[in-house]
């Protein structure tokens, strides 16, 4: 597959690359947190255009990759129940559980449906009053308003056969977990633009202060990414650590108040397990007690055996930036997008799949 090399604004891309080259003196590791940004960096070939002394580390910002195996197993279990329609975003269905993926559950007769939006799942519940409809509600802050809204709609319409299986994760606590790790190699962060479009940028001030590290809220197009990298490198070279916003055309400082309000109505902050990383305190959302009728975790008593992962998958080290995907011995051999061993090989936002699809490993090895 070829890179998207024909940028619409090649002169801007060239100018930004030139300015980055002129600015950078030291060796810097910059982590892009969001999987969409990883995908864009790799797909557009930007990693090979940056100067060698800037290393991009690919963070844990892919909800598909960090959803725990135990939850996939629960979704599969529910999908195999006769009375359940299990609805999910398309990216989730190939993720390996400890037994089956949702796709395999579907081929074995489970009623698994891929939807564009959780709001469609509420409609399906209305149309099928004698079935239980469960939406597999994964995502970061960007997706939380939509998942919360589906519960609000179901509640408002008195739809009782709808619930969500949540695995919501939050970005700032994950960044904090990475920074507080003693072997943390990250010198600066690109924060995820669309997450901040919802939540605003206020949560990052304490991180900037505590860890003395630049954080630049950044979009996902090539020009955005290069601008975000340049803003970060400028701070690093000047010995500064500030919160900056590259993506002002979409991200307002306060975020989206209506979205935050609907999240607060339905969800509360909880501890959350991240696949490949482990438990991170206060890093996820769970459905609030007064909406527990819509919480699939409480509605169904799912008793499943303890989940197990492929022990040779190094996804945790990849997501913490300790190794690059192609340094995993399974990469491209035992583990490919068609037969993934771990979640980062499944979604195109996962670092392993991004590298695989765009042959980055070979390019890097040949260099």
């Amino acid at each position, binding site marked *: 597959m070829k890179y998207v090399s024909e940028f619409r604004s090649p002169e801007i891309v060239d100018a930004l690359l030139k300015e980055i080259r002129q600015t950078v003196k030291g060796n810097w590791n910059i982590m892009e947190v969001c999987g969409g940004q990883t995908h864009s960096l790799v797909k*557009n070939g930007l990693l090979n255009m940056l100067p060698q002394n800037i290393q991009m580390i690919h963070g844990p910002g892919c909800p598909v990759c960090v959803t725990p195996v135990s939850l996939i197993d629960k979704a599969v279990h529910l999908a195999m129940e006769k009375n359940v329609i299990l609805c999910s975003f398309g990216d989730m269905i190939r993720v390996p559980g400890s037994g089956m993926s949702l796709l395999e559950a579907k081929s074995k007769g489970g009623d698994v449906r891929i939807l564009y939006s959780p709001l469609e799942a509420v409609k399906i519940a209305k149309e099928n009053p004698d079935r239980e409809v469960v939406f597999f509600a994964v995502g970061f802050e960007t997706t939380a308003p939509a998942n919360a809204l589906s519960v609000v709609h179901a509640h408002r319409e008195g739809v009782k056969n709808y619930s969500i299986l949540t695995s919501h994760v939050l970005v700032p606590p994950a960044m904090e977990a990475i920074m507080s790790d003693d072997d943390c190699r990250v010198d600066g962060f690109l924060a995820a633009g669309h997450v901040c479009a919802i939540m605003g940028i206020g949560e990052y001030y304490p991180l900037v202060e505590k860890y003395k590290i630049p954080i630049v809220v950044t979009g996902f197009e090539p020009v955005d990414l290069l601008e975000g990298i340049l803003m970060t490198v400028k701070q690093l070279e000047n010995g500064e650590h500030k919160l900056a916003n590259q993506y002002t055309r979409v991200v307002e400082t306060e975020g989206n108040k209506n979205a935050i309000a609907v999240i607060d109505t339905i969800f509360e902050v909880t501890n959350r397990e991240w696949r490949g990383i482990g438990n991170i305190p206060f890093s996820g959302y769970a459905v609030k007690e007064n909406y527990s009728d819509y919480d699939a975790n409480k509605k169904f008593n799912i008793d499943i055996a303890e989940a197990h992962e492929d022990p040779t998958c190094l996804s945790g080290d990849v997501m913490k930036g300790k190794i690059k995907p192609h340094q995993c011995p399974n990469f491209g051999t035992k583990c490919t997008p068609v037969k993934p061993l771990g979640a980062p090989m499944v979604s195109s936002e996962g670092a392993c799949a991004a590298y695989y699809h765009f042959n980055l490993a070979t390019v890097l090895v040949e260099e």
Partner: protein
Amino acid sequence: MCLAIPGKIQSIELLYGGAVKMAKVSFGGIIKEASLEMVPTADVGDYVLVHVGVAISKVNEEEANKVFGYLREAGELDELYDTTI
């Protein structure tokens, strides 16, 4: 799956006695439903960034066209088409 795609509001429908504002949004000709509850001031003709069926912010026309053009060029619009496995 964290993508937000810009589209133009074609029409608006009020549901449940006006409590819920749903719009038909055109993404380069593909029409999808989106909730406007997070951007209540959005009106017909406005451009909004839509993520999994919910508009999360308003954008201007130029930005919308620029981002949509990029996403189309990069082949990132799969989720707009009917998903089949």
